[in-house]
């Protein structure tokens, strides 16, 4: 039982990170209907920014940690908007597959830029412990302050996003564009601004996710985004792509399942496969995901 609770805590903190990244995928999919493969590299850039800023700051302070988090979110929001403006906007309206390939191109570009020795190089670097570290024991369940930070920050950001999407004019415009871009434009929504801000929000969440991930698995390297990115995408599909609560739920489920499988004695080496197996099962039984709505096919 104790071990179960321990794995549950570990799984939730991993799942919270997946959820943060998955939100970006799902928001972009919601408004533009394409898989932003470069999102996993935005996550990586977030971790890199955190690493670069964190080294300059005194370590183990709350304000330092928050500055690192804020810097990463800001840089990622700008990066997301830049990518959208320079690459995705000119391609809007062309075939989905072309946009997909371009996204993969952007992803390769960011990876290779960071792999260049003058920028970062291929060697993994230790992520500085920017938040104060303390370990708690709750009835035999060990909980590090970093895990707590991950869960709390992720929860706050998700609640914040939910408020933005459902309580502000921007959020209403985002939902309108997701529902029907042409109609939204007809009633005076500035589609370009809404899409740019969607990218900014999603990328900022990925940046926060990058810092939180790097805190718990304390290294950063240019290819670190690939696996978490793929799994977060799986989480987004699992929850129902386009659905914001779905992405959060999918991330939590995936993180928990993965941690339990990774902790079991004879399945642990299949950890990376399990995420995809879960995905395939879900898609075959319920292709719209857990919370996704069925879109009727128009002929």
């Amino acid at each position, binding site marked *: 039982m104790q071990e179960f609770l321990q794995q549950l805590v570990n799984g939730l903190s991993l799942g919270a990170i997946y959820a943060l990244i998955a939100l970006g995928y799902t928001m972009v999919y919601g408004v533009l209907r394409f898989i932003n493969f470069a999102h996993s590299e935005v996550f990586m850039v977030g971790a890199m920014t955190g690493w670069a800023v964190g080294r300059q700051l005194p370590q183990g302070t709350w304000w330092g940690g928050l500055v690192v988090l804020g810097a990463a979110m800001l840089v990622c929001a700008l990066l997301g908007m830049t990518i959208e403006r320079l690459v995705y906007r000119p391609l809007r309206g062309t075939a989905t597959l072309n946009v997909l390939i371009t996204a993969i191109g952007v992803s390769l570009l960011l990876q290779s*830029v960071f792999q260049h020795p003058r920028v970062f190089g291929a060697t993994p670097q230790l992520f500085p412990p920017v938040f104060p570290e303390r370990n708690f024991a709750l009835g035999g369940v060990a909980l590090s302050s970093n895990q707590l930070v991950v869960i709390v920050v992720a929860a706050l950001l998700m609640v914040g996003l939910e408020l933005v999407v459902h309580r502000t004019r921007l959020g209403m415009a985002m939902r309108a564009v997701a529902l029907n871009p042409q109609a939204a434009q007809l009633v005076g929504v500035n589609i370009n601004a809404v899409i740019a801000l969607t990218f900014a929000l999603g990328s900022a969440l990925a940046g926060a996710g990058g810092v939180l991930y790097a805190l718990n698995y304390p290294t950063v390297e240019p290819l670190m985004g690939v696996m978490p990115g793929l799994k977060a995408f799986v989480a987004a599909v699992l929850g129902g792509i386009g659905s914001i609560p779905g992405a959060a739920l999918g991330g939590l489920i995936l993180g928990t399942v993965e941690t339990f499988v990774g902790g079991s004695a004879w399945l642990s080496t299949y950890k990376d*496969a399990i995420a995809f197996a879960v995905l395939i099962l879900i898609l075959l039984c319920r292709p719209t995901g857990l919370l996704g709505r069925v879109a009727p096919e128009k002929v």
Partner: protein
Amino acid sequence: MESKVQSPKSGIPGPHLALVGALLVAGGVGLCSDWIDPYHLDVLTNIGINVILAVSLNLVNGHTGQFSLGHAGFMSVGAYLAAAVTLNLAPRLFGPDGGAAGPTALLFLGALLAGGLAAALAGLLVGVPSLRLKGDYLAIVTLGFGQIIVVLFQNFEPLGGALGLNGIPPYTTVGWVLAWAAVAVFTVGCLVRSTYGRGFLAVRDDEVAAAALGLDPTRYKTVAFVVGAFFAGIAGGLYAHFRLTITPGGFDFTKSIEIVVMVILGGMGNTLGVILAAVLLTLLPEVLRPVAEYRMILYSLLLIGLMLVRPQGLFCFKRGRTN
């Protein structure tokens, strides 16, 4: 889509003659290979393998319109099975010195076919459940299956686990590769142009309309998937006996993407374009070798630039096709 329906005039007269010609050329190049620079031979072999991969994926992605991101997974099945066959049988049949040319060639052919059939079987197993899905979902499920195949090989100790297989006999020659590339192009080309094969294009252009005409879309998709997987498996076998070492990591998502990029740059469903794109994308890293530090940066910039400038594919000169 009248632009896709090629008149008999636009095709090469007598595809069978063309195949025989191509096989003769392949044999000729194979015989002269002693006089060709080894570096050029390597590049040529790589080109041939990539042509097989791209043309076979083109049947699935281009002609049938089913976006698959797991082609490298099928390639790995073929590579592993073919390598296992030759690694186990070659020493028993021929002793430590290797055998005469005839029996080795037969063994290699058998190994390749076994690899191809195993990949085709994997294609069937993956295809039947996942081809019920469409578009992005299909892409992500095939991606998932590709990753799962990699993890399975990583954990399967009899085939070397994460370290992979080493010391595979160097059976792949440029002649073999070019011959198989010719067979792949011929098979896919003839399949798509046959009466039966019109079904692939119909399913791509409008699945509902195709079903209304009495075609079975799922069946066509599965056939395309299985044939594509078969040739991916053959390419894998050739790759294994060319590189002599294979690891599961070499067949991951990145490899699948590389093949998809060839298909898209060539223009989906445009066989000649896809072949040219495969040649170009194999040559590109070689050309960029002097600026090795910036190689990947330039490659990705070119990829983005091409998609922005020529979204219909580099070699598609007909009217642009949109989804």
